[in-house]
């Protein structure tokens, strides 16, 4: 296994070829904010929070999918990056209806955590207050489109881990939304196995167990890694 040595924020780090910049940064304890990324799922590089500066590259690159290269010099923090990250969070807050005070995920919400991290105490952009629906047709879970940030973790976990492919993204641009089956009520989709993995990986309160009220959603997305490791161990593959 060959190894690449690179510099992240002045720290030298050696990583196996094929590793991503995000993994390299975490290796040396540098936190790069992420939202759509989740260990165990295929990366989509859609939220753009993890963009970093690479010396010699004119463009910002997403750390979650950019592979390490020998001699790379990476900066994960700069005034520009800080401002862009805050803007991404503001764009997410303004395009949905995120009211923390009445949200099931309050206190356990990745969007909320990122907002605190990037120092977003208010939005510089106007709120759009879109008219969005809530789907409570499933027996055990609910989907509140108002809180959805379209990270597509649910789409990916259902397709890649559970193998049911209940979720998809429909429409485009600002009209994008998550749909179950062929845009059916979630409860009417036979393919759903009621496994709850989508609820588990949802970074916000968009997908939640019915019965949870304010601050009561406690699902932890990092449980996915434990689940995948257990699965691999049972199949006899190296963990």
């Amino acid at each position, binding site marked *: 296994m060959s190894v690449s040595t690179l510099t992240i924020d002045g720290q030298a780090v050696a990583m196996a070829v094929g590793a991503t910049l995000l993994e390299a940064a975490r290796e040396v304890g540098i936190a790069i904010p992420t939202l759509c990324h989740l260990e165990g799922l295929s990366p989509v590089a859609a939220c753009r929070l993890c963009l970093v500066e690479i010396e010699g590259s004119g463009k910002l690159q997403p750390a979650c999918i950019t592979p390490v290269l020998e001699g790379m010099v990476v900066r994960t923090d700069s005034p*520009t990056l800080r401002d862009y990250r805050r*803007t991404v969070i503001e*764009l997410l807050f303004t395009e949905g209806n995120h009211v923390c005070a009445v949200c099931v995920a309050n206190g356990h919400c990745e969007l909320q955590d990122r907002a605190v991290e990037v120092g977003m105490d208010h939005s510089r952009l*106007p709120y759009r207050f879109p008219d969005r629906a809530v789907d409570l047709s499933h027996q055990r879970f609910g989907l509140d489109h108002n809180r959805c940030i379209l990270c597509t973790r649910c789409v990916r976990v259902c397709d890649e881990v559970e193998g049911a492919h209940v979720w998809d993204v429909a*429409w*485009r*641009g*600002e009209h994008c939304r998550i749909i179950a089956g062929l845009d059916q009520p979630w409860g009417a989709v036979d393919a759903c196995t009621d496994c709850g993995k989508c609820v588990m990986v949802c970074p916000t309160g968009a997908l939640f167990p019915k019965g949870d009220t304010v601050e009561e959603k406690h699902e932890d997305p990092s449980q996915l890694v434990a689940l995948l490791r257990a699965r691999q161990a049972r199949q006899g593959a190296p963990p």
Partner: protein
Amino acid sequence: MTAPPAPLCLRCCTSAGCLASGAAELRQALQRAVSCLELVDRIEIRGVGCLGPCSQGALLAVDPDGALFAGVRAEDATGLIAALVRRWELEAIDGQRRPLAWTPGRGERLDTSRPFFARQRRVVLENCGLIDPERIEAAIERGAYDQLRRAVQELTPMQVVETIYRSGLRGRGGAGYPTGLKWSTVAKMPGDHKVVVCNADEGDPGAFMDRSVLEGDPHRVLEGMAIAAFAVGASRGFIYIRAEYTLAIENLRGAIEQAQRHRLLGQRLFDSSFEFTVELRVGAGAYVCGEETALIHSIEGKRGTPRPRPPYPAEQGVGGLPTLINNVETFANVVPILREGSDWYAAIGTTSSKGTKVFSLTGNVRWGGLLEVPMGTSLATIVQEMGGGAPEGSTIKAVQTGGPSGGCVPASELNTAVDYASLQELGTIMGSGGMVVMDHSTNMVALAAFFMEFCRDESCGKCVPCRAGTVQLHGLLQKHLAGDATAADLAQLEALCHMVKDTSLCGLGQSAPKPVLSTLRFFREEYVALLKPVAARATEAAP
């Protein structure tokens, strides 16, 4: 007794633009008149591709005179045929050739020596407007598939790649990536299965170059694709074309079928082991599918959303196979390069941009339409001289190039020679060749808002800056237009433009702010003039 005069050919433009001006009815009326008078043997009525000045349709050319008529209507048909017959009768008396003395009722005869025609250099469009695109025989007569045969029988794939490389041809889809380099990358990829894709998802407002090429000379593109397939070692081809291009789709379908029947596409071509099949894929109306990774997803039957590159399509494209993607005009350049040689092609154009470029000229200009000029021709030549400038009583304010991904060139910079580098310096791009001329009545902020609305509607919604950022940008522009914006809003507009440009995932989002940044650069005073006066704000704030 003099010899019977040469048979006449009436070339009737059947491209989408002229069809909208009644070209189909005109063609029918001509055919009726000719058959009524039993002149079918002596007068050929030929449907052809674009004849050029689309704004003057319907267009009709008369051969061998080479006369071109504009604004011809169906009711002119009998008059024209009668005039032709009268000329025959007169010529039969004294044996003297004479010019055609006829003008259409409400149209006019166009002077083909005027700059619009004279300053063109037709390489891509050399057959367009001459041949009947529905008959492969017409294309073959003009040499179609000769270069494919030569490549397969006499050249090695490496020689073909080398020829394209040395010609200096760059991608005509917008980004201007060197075509030869792209071909050699795909050619070097391992594997027996590779794919060639023609991007015909032309979607910029005001752009119709690719449509015209496909409508007027579809075999030119098919042959270019087949040569590319031979060069890179591919056996499957796709043409991804937008559903709105009904006539181009129809002509392409017919062309593919005829080429297969003539064994010019398919298996064991020219008694070699080379095989190449082409399938049409019709888009479903998403602008973003012109982006190559979204286009690949769409061909695969998936949602048309872009993905980050690398891996580039050359490594992993359609079905995970190495894929060569070029646009229509790029493929249409391949045949003349092979026929005339790379040195000939490289001698046309400028140091950084070789060959010719097809432009579609639209907007506030007297002579709108399709034209092809050598790279390095100045914007002033194209717009003022060839296009005839702005209509009576107005002056040109700016020229928009590159569609929603491009920017505006102000009138003061019109002397710029058009090539990839010079346009980039002006903050715009060559793009695919759409050129929209705007006169002094155009509100540049409204123009920027129009393009932003376009990008907002066409954003696929995958990445946050493009999905939500274009909405906020459009809102800010609307606020300016409504006269409600402050200096802080203008600053925010500019900052958000840079953020969306720097952080979006694909080209659509990265270039969506360009029309705003470009108009801010050259017409900032128009934005400032729309700002709310400070005094008005102060009174509002007072209790």
